């Protein structure tokens, strides 16, 4: 291919942005591979140990934006021991040398030290966007470095991190002439913010589109912020309770009614019915309402709110809204595509009724476009789940968590097999599935047989025998991620996936019946597969593998593994 043609191809490829499409392009021929790698600006790395920074920078010399994920997802639930790994620093060192033009970094479940943040701020002159989700290892000092040195920052998104929250002073570190911020999210921090600094920042960043403050920001302060930023598209409020004077109250109503472009609303900590009516003017345009921090919101509050939200596409709530609240959603939000119901009392130490099968069915009746469901509840029935699947056949993500492990259908006493059977049979586009409740191997037989598009499966306290997992490994042609805890799946089950693991991103098995020998055998039989075992207790039985993490890698065994991680 001459250089002229390469130029043309490059121009065309610049219009191809989807990572999947670009991967396909790179497989056409050597020339296309070459043009693709030189024109690639963004790279997504789903597992930071599946490849090395050297390999990435060698293949893609012109990257501007990197998304990098670290620890297995179960680390979110304390199943991965501390200091397991996933440090971003080795990546930053190589990026600083090879990608001085780097503008964007999105990290999930990685360890990011303050030194790393300082290094980042100092190394990339044109750095624009930093997003940290479920990361740890840093403090607000690191944020100070980012605020001080990233002169062109447009996005700082700090979400649900395990951060050492020393103070809110970092907000005052943005230089006086800094005006580029477009997305600012610090909703997960606890410290009082320097409000004057925040207000000044918001007032001078005229392109601010997304602002999510933490719960220390009061309603009256929010009023001031909104006064400066009526152009906001997404807002995360602080505490939504404060004794307001009538004039403050009407002023709050006024600023909200000025936010004509707002389409996403979150925060609303401590919201009670009292001030919800100020939101009604913006409700009409809302497509995303996140009430999952509003623990005091009840069914009637939600009912009144959603009655004003006819265009809602995504709704997150706590189970304090109960079935009646969900009924109101069903009758008011016909366009709903995503529903997440989180538990207000996940340990069950409070007498909260939560939501049941009837709320689930009510939503499915009223919201036929539902595609994404995350539903935490204490009881469920096979019939209800089957009805939901019938009503919403386009579901792609179905995550049902019945919080009592291995709980049967509470009306019939039957296992929940038919429920998930109905989901995989009816919802043929299903990509992600989380199962719970009392489940026999039959559930997995259904999944293996019908879930042809399934990419991501989570299993807990389920199944009878190796056969269960074997059904999944022998079916599910598109499976990428499989995470299993506390299931009677052993060596035969593990080894039944030999053919599969190369096409999968990862397999997690904890508290199952897998032995060290099987792990060793698996590693020896499949090339480019890292089989890691986390030993929790050195005095334990050496033949059992408590926590197994299997992933493909072209970088070989990782070199930073702590002592409790054995790699085969």
């Amino acid at each position, binding site marked *: 291919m001459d250089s002229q043609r390469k130029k043309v191809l490059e121009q065309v490829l610049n219009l191809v942005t989807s990572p999947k499409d670009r991967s396909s392009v790179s497989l056409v021929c050597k020339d296309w591979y070459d043009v693709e790698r030189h024109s690639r600006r963004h790279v997504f790395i789903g597992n930071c140990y599946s490849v090395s920074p050297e390999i990435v920078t060698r293949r893609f010399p012109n990257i501007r934006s990197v998304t990098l994920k670290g620890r297995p997802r179960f680390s979110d639930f*304390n199943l991965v021991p501390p200091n397991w790994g996933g440090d971003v620093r080795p990546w930053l060192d190589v990026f600083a040398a090879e990608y001085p033009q780097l503008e964007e970094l999105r990290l999930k479940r990685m360890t990011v030290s303050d030194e790393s943040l300082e290094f980042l701020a100092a190394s990339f002159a044109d750095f624009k966007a930093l997003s940290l989700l*479920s990361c740890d290892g840093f403090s607000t000092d690191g944020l100070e470095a980012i605020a001080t040195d990233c002169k062109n920052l447009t996005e700082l998104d700090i979400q649900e991190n395990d951060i050492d929250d020393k103070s809110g002073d970092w907000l005052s570190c943005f230089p006086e002439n800094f005006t580029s911020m477009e997305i600012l999210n610090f909703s997960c921090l606890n410290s009082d913010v320097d409000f004057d600094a925040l207000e000044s920042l918001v007032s001078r960043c005229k392109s601010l589109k997304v602002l999510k403050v933490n719960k220390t920001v009061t309603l009256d302060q929010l009023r001031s912020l909104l006064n400066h930023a009526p152009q906001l598209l997404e807002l995360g409020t602080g505490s939504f309770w404060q004794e307001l004077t009538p004039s403050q109250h009407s002023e709050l109503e006024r600023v909200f009614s000025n936010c004509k472009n707002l389409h996403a609303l979150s925060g609303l900590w401590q919201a*009670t019915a009292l001030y919800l009516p100020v939101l009604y003017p913006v409700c009409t345009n809302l497509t995303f309402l996140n009430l999952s*921090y509003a623990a005091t919101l009840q069914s009637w509050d939600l009912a009144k709110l959603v009655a004003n939200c006819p265009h809602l596409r995504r709704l997150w709530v706590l189970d304090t809204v109960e079935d009646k609240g969900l009924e109101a959603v069903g009758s008011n939000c016909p366009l709903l595509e995503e529903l997440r119901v989180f538990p207000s*009392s996940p340990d069950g130490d*409070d*007498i909260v009724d939560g939501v049941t099968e009837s709320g689930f069915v009510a939503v499915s009746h009223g919201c036929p476009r539902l595609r994404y469901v995350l539903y935490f509840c204490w009881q469920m029935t096979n019939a209800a789940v089957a009805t939901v699947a019938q009503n919403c056949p386009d579901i792609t993500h179905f995550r049902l968590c019945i919080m009592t492990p291995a*709980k049967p259908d509470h009306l019939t006493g039957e296992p929940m097999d038919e429920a998930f059977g109905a989901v995989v049979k009816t919802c043929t586009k299903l990509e992600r599935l989380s199962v719970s409740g009392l489940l026999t191997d039959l559930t997995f037989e259904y999944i293996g047989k019908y879930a042809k598009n399934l990419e991501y499966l989570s299993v807990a306290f389920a*199944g009878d025998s190796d056969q269960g997992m074997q059904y999944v490994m022998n079916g599910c042609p598109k499976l990428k991620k499989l995470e299993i805890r506390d299931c009677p799946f052993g060596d035969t089950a593990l080894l039944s996936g030999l053919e599969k693991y190369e096409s999968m991103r990862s397999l997690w098995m904890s508290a199952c019946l897998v032995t060290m020998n099987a792990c060793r055998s698996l590693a020896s039989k499949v090339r480019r597969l890292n089989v890691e075992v986390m030993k929790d207790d050195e005095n334990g039985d050496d033949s059992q593998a408590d926590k197994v993490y299997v992933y493909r890698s072209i970088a070989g065994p990782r070199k930073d593994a702590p002592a409790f991680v054995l790699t085969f």
Partner: protein
Amino acid sequence: MVAEMEGCTRKEEEACPQLLDLIPRQRDWLVSRDIEGSSHGSSSSEEKKLELRLGPPCQNWSMERERDEKSQSLLSLGYFSSPMFSNQTQKLISSYQQQAKVGSFIHLPVNPNKASQPCCSKVVDLQNAERKGFSPAPANTAVLPNTSQKRTAPAPIVGWPPVRSFRKNLASNNSSKPAVESENVVQNKVPNGKPVETSRQGLFVKINMDGVPIGRKVDLGAYDSYQKLSSAVDELFRGLLAAQRDSCAGGTKNKQGEEKEIAGLLDGSGEYTLVYEDNEGDRMLVGDVPWQMFVSTVKRLRVLKSSELSALRLRSSKQDKMPL
């Protein structure tokens, strides 16, 4: 912490191989447990007791819970499993529950529901002891759970339910105060000789107040008139409301002075009015029906700003619902 607990499970498995080996991979788990019990020296009379225990599990369940709460005995380990576990899962879950209990024993020795066994290796002995002492068997028989047992109180399992710790903290921040409160109320109830379990399930209702971001629970069994309920509500929320106003006022610490009685809850003459949601989901004014009828139909209470009241379509219970 995780490491400790996991290690404990394994030690337990090592220490009592017989117990685990004898759990077959079929569904007759309970039966096999009985066999295993007798193989550890229990007499035939004990076997009979075991048979008797296969009665309605719901009843057993509540008896056991009640007994647990009353005796607070460390031997009351009948750790309850959810009904109908499938064979292997049963083993895994119960080992998790035990392990979790060991954890909770260390931290919360007073919590009667989580009374634990100090030593894992004594599982078999202690289970036998439990059988001798208390006839109810763990409610893991293959019978339908009672519907009133709306949810089993789950022993804490590491990482379950799968909620990010960020969210867990969120929930505990919000519910910590009411939880403490309800425990106090439960303890206060015991001298009345009333079965704690009943009052917990039957007469506690949630109560929220406009402008107070913390929900409470109130035990209606402790009162016999609207007037007493009204004063209780005042007591519950007076301090909270003052504190709330105080903190919102921005640091002017004047707590004592600001606390004022929440009066006129029942006749609409005060700043706040007490309303309730009944079992059919209708919202009504508190005080319209005889007390006992109120108690039997109320599902939750709410203290509304009286100014908000007119905006609500309240159903007049007398005319529409319960003609007297």
